[in-house]
């Protein structure tokens, strides 16, 4: 055989490794300068915020890998949040049924997106703007004013600490990676999704189930977004149909995906990268807090980091030999 494996593995996971390194760097600066030091409470608060965005970023990654985009993830999150504040209450059995209801609703939202994109042949961007608005409408119908409740035991379990002071949210994230992302990545359908995103024509010609791959990607995206919505409910103990929240999560999830080295053209990248992208993005926001800068600098600073990441990704364009390829 020719050569070693590791250069090829490195090449494949370059984006993920960059995101990981970026996060570690940012978090080290953050932890070193935090006035209270890195104690368990600081870590848990940071983890809860970070994991929330990380789950949404995972949802976004699945769709982006098929070279689509899901602008409804934030609204699915809001809808799941409002629904959860109604039905994830009561006895353990009722709570479990409520959780199942929330997750099924998320799947239904994702499936709807997928069906419209595949059979309606509409662009994902238009489809998900429209469905996102509809999901928000449903959320508003469920919660005209913020309120509701959630099963306290579940909420504390998800947002608290495990023995040893490890944030439970991180365990949830790890569980999601192990139970959703890794099997997906290793399944025929998950690889088909990357193939479709990389070159839909080549994928079709190779006998790849193009439509099924897209459908599953949107479905799982809806599922993950609803898990994030459930998590929001556990953090806030209430439901709120906030359009601003939904839009922010949607946009931040795209930022996280980009920072995580996932190509917006589809085909390459990993949800693990997007997770580190999300954690990095959150840490950037918090960095300003530990340096006592005014919060109004936060969007500017986040924007600059994002811009730098995009520029890094655009460097390859300098190698293009046929200028027409730039427009392909």
């Amino acid at each position, binding site marked *: 055989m020719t050569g070693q494996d590791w250069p090829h593995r490195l*090449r494949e996971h370059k984006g993920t490794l960059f995101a990981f390194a970026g996060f570690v760097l940012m978090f080290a600066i953050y932890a070193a300068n935090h006035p209270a030091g890195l104690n368990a409470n600081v870590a848990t608060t940071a983890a809860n915020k970070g994991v929330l965005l990380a789950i949404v970023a995972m949802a976004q990654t699945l769709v982006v890998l098929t070279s689509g985009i899901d602008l409804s993830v934030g609204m699915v999150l809001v809808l799941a949040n409002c629904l959860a504040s109604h039905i994830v209450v009561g006895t353990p059995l009722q709570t479990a049924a409520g959780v199942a209801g929330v997750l099924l609703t998320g799947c239904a939202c994702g499936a709807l997106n997928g069906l419209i994109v595949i059979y309606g042949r509409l662009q994902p961007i238009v489809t998900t703007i429209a469905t996102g608005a509809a999901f928000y409408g449903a959320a508003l119908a469920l919660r005209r004013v913020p309120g509701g409740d959630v099963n306290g035991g579940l909420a504390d379990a998800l947002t608290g600490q495990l023995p040893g002071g490890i944030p439970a949210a991180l365990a949830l994230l790890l569980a999601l990676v192990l139970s959703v992302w890794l099997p997906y990545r290793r399944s025929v359908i998950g*690889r088909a999704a*990357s*193939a479709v995103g*990389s070159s839909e024509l080549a994928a079709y010609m*190779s006998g790849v*189930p193009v439509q099924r791959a897209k459908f599953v990607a949107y479905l799982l995206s809806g599922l993950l977004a609803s898990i994030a919505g459930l998590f929001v409910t556990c953090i806030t103990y209430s439901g709120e149909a906030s359009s601003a929240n939904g839009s922010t999560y949607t946009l931040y999830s795209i930022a996280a995906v980009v920072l995580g080295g996932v190509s917006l053209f589809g085909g390459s990248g990993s949800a693990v990268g997007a997770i580190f992208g999300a954690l990095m993005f959150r840490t950037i926001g918090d960095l300003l807090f530990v340096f006592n800068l005014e919060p109004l600098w936060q969007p500017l600073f986040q924007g600059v980091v994002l811009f730098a990441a995009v520029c890094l990704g655009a460097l390859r364009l300098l190698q293009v*030999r046929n*200028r027409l390829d730039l427009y392909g």
Partner: protein
Amino acid sequence: MQAVSKRYGGVRALQAADLSVEPGRIHAILGENGAGKSTLIKVMAGVVAADEGRMLLDGAPVTFTSPAAANAAGIVCVFQELSLVPDLSVADNLFISNPPRRFGLIDRRAQRRLAEEALARAGADDVHPLSLVKDLSLSRRQMVEIAKALARQPRILILDEATSALTAADVTKVYAVLKRLRTDGLALLYISHRMHEIAELADECTVFCNGRSVAHYAAGAKTDNEVIELMIGRQLSADFHSGVFPPKPPPPAETGPPRLELKQLRWTHRLADISLTLRPGEVVGLGGLDGQGQRELLLALFGVLRGCSGELHIDGAPVAIGGPHAAKRPGIGMALIPEDRKTEGLMLPMSVRENLSYAALGTLSRGGVIDRAAERAAVDRMMALLAVRCDGPDVAAGALSGGNQQKLVIGKWLMMAPRIILLNDPTRGIDVGTKQEIYQLLRRLADEGAAILFYSTDYDELIGCCDRVLVMVDGAIHRELRGAQITERALVSAALDVEAAA
């Protein structure tokens, strides 16, 4: 395994073509550009459905609705346009539709091992199974493509120009592989334009011409010239040419510097040492088979390709062209009529007027503001000149017929009175009447002093329109034909790189 036979008709691309493929044989398919070879194998591979006729596999009729269905039946095709997914690894690509599985998930270790075996079987053991396809060179990709086809355990393997991007060493390996597969009892269908490859490999040959299978013979039973005769398929009558094409003037006197002179152009591995001259009043054709670098040559002249080496002189003075915008400057006045009018030539949702005037907006505007009256006058003049048939200049370009759209593309560049016109297969897919108008227009432009470089896949056009034809093979100019030398036989034999009989 019994033979495959199929017939279908009604479509222009293929008319009641018959073919039978036997196990343990290599069956070569020959034909000109557009003779129906690619359509034929697309039907066999389940990419397009036949309108009529049927396909028999082992004596039982079959129809394939998708490439996956054809694969399942054991028919696997190595396509001319590569079917690899760039962002996945070689191993992932080889087993993309049916990977080895354990507990329902892809068994990566097994896949890796199988990939190594498959690559070795195809003679591509220098490719690392974990490397990403987008990092491989074109020739490596083609080898991976062949390995991928073999990994599917085909019973019928179709190779469509599968060796076109390979190095000589690879070709030898692929020959050895194909011969071994033949011994193993596979049926192989081999499409190639290279006569010596066919002589080396094939057991039997079928010639296609105008969508029909016109001859079937055992390999070696016919000479190259007889084969070319079959591929041309008909004797052209003299009045066919004089009717459609305008008469050619005597060649222009070679005084003064040529309008355009290109010396030793090179670009990556696709263009090699191209030198050519264009004189005012001349229509020079680019011939050869599809994809021999003609398109790249035109793009290089137009400044679209980066990293070209070589010298370009316009009117005797050296110039560097950095892009289409530079190419249309007054001192150069170069225009390129692109191959794909829908994506590179027109903005389909915009109006006829806007499409016609945008290349010439520099002369139709003052201080950055478009002079509407001047624009209207210029557009009306051009529409009358080209006889564009549409409901006025304000309809969307997308609403016009293909021929009229092509007139718009040409008209757009004529608005700036170009001195050098490059055309990339401008008459593909348009009707005969419009073609005729375009031929006459070209000749008139040449008579008015433009220098024209004209790539066409249609040999009749090259014969009818051009004063000289440069035949390209493998990114280089292989032969130059002048005046009465330009015959279909000479064009085909030059393109296929065989010596023409006198």
